[in-house]
């Protein structure tokens, strides 16, 4: 977690012209790509309704499905581990690695592993985690965290990546040719897949019915990580479980269409067991680590539960006018953008992360495209309500943490003005006459940082209507 306020981080990001250009360019492209695959509005709506229904149905049976998933995986030879916290999840992963006396892990892209801060944890135990997704590889070289949940290095342009490769990859020449940059990454990574005995990946969907782990990707590194090393460890949040294999086609269509504007990803991996007798490849051991980290608490509340429908496509980031201007790092937590703004305050608590819920104009661009129809603005409002709530217990951790006298009085005053017509007319009359002499502090000063002073009308609509004799009943 970052130590400065969100506002400070956002201000700095806004001042970085290169960063803003990179995001504006990349997000604009993602929006166009998505539009191209979801050009039929009625069909897209049908598909989104289906995706939403599948995830809601799965969540309504969550405990049962998780039990079923564990049984099915176990039957298939996948070892299932439960982790209530990220600390437990990290320990589980560490113990598996240590049981094989390994000192390196090749990793496919996994946001849950970011949530666990797994790489740093493993490093503190002398184990090197090697990111093999191209974007993750770039930011790992540069000592950064992902700025986007699908395209982690999207804040970098070609020239910046060329410089990182040239400086951080031994023997790499400076080149801005994409094919050459890819070749450098491939050469560096390919050897690691053969050398390293442990592969780690995330999970996009886990099918309870069959005990199948579904993983989509475009670079083949995910398949390498899950088939070449002798041991495969998959980490997932417990909300990733779906009922049946049939649920996958619409969800995959929604996920890839929303995320990258693809009809299907280059690789769709369905992992159902370790290498079986007589099979020539595949890991000897497959482990599934199922992480809770606050999710089961979110699950308890029917409204908040809808947060867990998320399939991590990242399209809410791409369409968010705030995210596209400040980028992912400014949010200060693992999950940026609209999904991060509703998820992080619930997981980390309102004291630590509640300010994220306020960093939205509630324009609704995110929920308009969300493939599983998460009511993001409704949830942002809920978190705002919780932040100021005087209700004692329950709800989101840190409930009521923003309560303060100044705002309470301001809103009470606003209420009085808007429930007492005479007072209201008096106030607008005063502002109409003397509005320009308002003291230049507080909200007005913040408004006027980027705008001229608002001009109150000399006579309000109420007064004009009275003068014009428009009927009042």
């Amino acid at each position, binding site marked *: 977690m970052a130590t400065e306020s969100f*506002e400070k981080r*956002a*201000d700095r990001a*806004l001042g970085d012209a290169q960063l803003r250009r990179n995001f504006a360019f990349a997000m604009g492209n993602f929006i166009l790509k998505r539009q191209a695959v979801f050009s039929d509005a009625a069909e897209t709506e049908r598909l989104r309704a289906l995706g939403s229904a599948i995830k809601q149905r799965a969540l309504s049976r969550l405990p049962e499905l998780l039990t079923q998933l564990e049984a099915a995986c176990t039957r298939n030879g996948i070892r299932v581990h439960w982790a209530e916290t990220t600390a437990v999840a990290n320990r589980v992963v560490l113990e598996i690695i240590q049981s094989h006396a390994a000192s390196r892990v090749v990793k496919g892209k996994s946001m849950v592993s970011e949530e666990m801060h797994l790489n740093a944890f493993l490093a503190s135990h002398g184990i090197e985690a090697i990111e093999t997704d191209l974007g993750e590889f770039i930011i790992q070289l540069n000592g950064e965290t992902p700025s986007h949940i699908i395209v982690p290095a999207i804040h970098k342009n070609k020239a910046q990546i060329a410089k990182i490769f040239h400086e951080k990859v031994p023997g790499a020449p400076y080149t801005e040719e994409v094919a050459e940059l890819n070749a450098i990454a491939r050469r560096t990574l390919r050897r690691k897949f053969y050398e390293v005995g442990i592969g780690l990946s995330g999970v996009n969907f886990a099918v309870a019915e069959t005990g199948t782990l579904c993983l989509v990707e475009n670079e083949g590194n995910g398949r390498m990580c899950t088939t070449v090393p002798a041991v495969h460890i998959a980490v997932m949040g417990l909300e990733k479980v779906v009922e049946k294999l049939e649920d996958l086609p619409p969800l995959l269509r929604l996920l890839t269409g929303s995320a990258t504007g693809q009809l299907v990803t280059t690789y769709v991996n369905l992992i159902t067991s370790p290498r079986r007798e007589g099979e020539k490849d595949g890991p000897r051991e497959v482990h599934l680590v199922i992480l809770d980290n606050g999710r089961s608490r979110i699950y308890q509340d029917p409204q908040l539960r809808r947060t867990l429908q998320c399939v991590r496509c990242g399209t809410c980031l791409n369409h968010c*006018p*705030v995210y596209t*201007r400040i980028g992912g790092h400014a949010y200060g937590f693992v999950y940026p953008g609209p999904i991060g703004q509703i998820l992080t305050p619930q997981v980390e608590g309102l004291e630590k992360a509640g300010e994220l819920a*306020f*960093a*939205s*104009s*509630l*324009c*609704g*661009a995110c929920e*308009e495209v969300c493939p599983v129809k998460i009511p993001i603005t*409704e949830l942002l*409002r809920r978190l*705002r*309500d*919780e932040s*100021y709530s005087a209700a004692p217990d329950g709800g989101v951790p840190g409930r009521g943490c*923003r309560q303060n006298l100044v*705002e309470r009085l301001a*809103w*009470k005053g*606003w*209420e009085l003005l*808007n*429930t007492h*017509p005479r007072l*209201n007319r008096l106030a*607008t009359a005063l*502002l*109409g006459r003397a509005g320009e002499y308002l003291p230049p502090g507080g909200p007005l000063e*913040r*408004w*006027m*940082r*980027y*705008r*001229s*002073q*608002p*001009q*109150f*009308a000399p*006579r*309000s*609509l*109420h*007064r*004009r*209507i*009275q003068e*014009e004799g*428009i*009927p*009042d*009943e």
Partner: protein
Amino acid sequence: MTPESAKPAKIYFFGTCLIDAFYPEAGLAAIRLIEREGVRVVFPPGQSCCGQPAYNSGFPDQARAVARQQLRIFRQDIPVVVPSGSCAGMMKHHYPALFAGTEEEASARALAGRVFEWSEFMVRVLGVRYEDRGAPLRVTWHSSCHALREMKVVEFSKQLLRQLGNVELAELARERECCGFGGTFSIKHPAISGALVNDKVDDIERTGAERVIGGDCGCLMNIAGAAGRRGLPFAEQHLAEFIWERIHGD
């Protein structure tokens, strides 16, 4: 255009707090244009704000108190016409949730069912036809997020604009993007809001329009404020006021 429903004898007009204090001409024009179609407009003087500022800021109790005032005032079973997509959206789509489980729930639902955004009412219910008497003018249109996504009425507003024969509509490149107003958001996050509105102003400037027309005075105040600060020449105007001007040849 054929109206979709019968023309009511009278309607309520909800002026909104921003129009009341900043853009009364827009409110008057919206009323006159309805009256012009032979509909009696009732403006109950006790009306104030839809309650959205508090509703979006984490103060639902205060929002409810202010919304209750409107529920009490707009009682008769006649349409409530609102010259703002955002305030109309609040009343139509959020009042039922705001009053869920309270004794006013039924009346909140009833009111929600009677709410029309102004341009929607003019097109869908009144089926108005306008003759443009103004001089040739190039304008652009700003869609507010709530008119676009909650009320879904932008098409009606544009239908009205397109009736004005001497008006050239130059559309924005990023019409669907928020102008950064967001009510209290513009004050809580001035820098982000400022970045958004400045990008919107750039977009407007690139159209070469002399005026930006919109259906939501919050957005217009935001956009005009940022343009004014930068000393840019274009003016902002509510659609109703613009139409009133055009059909009178002003």
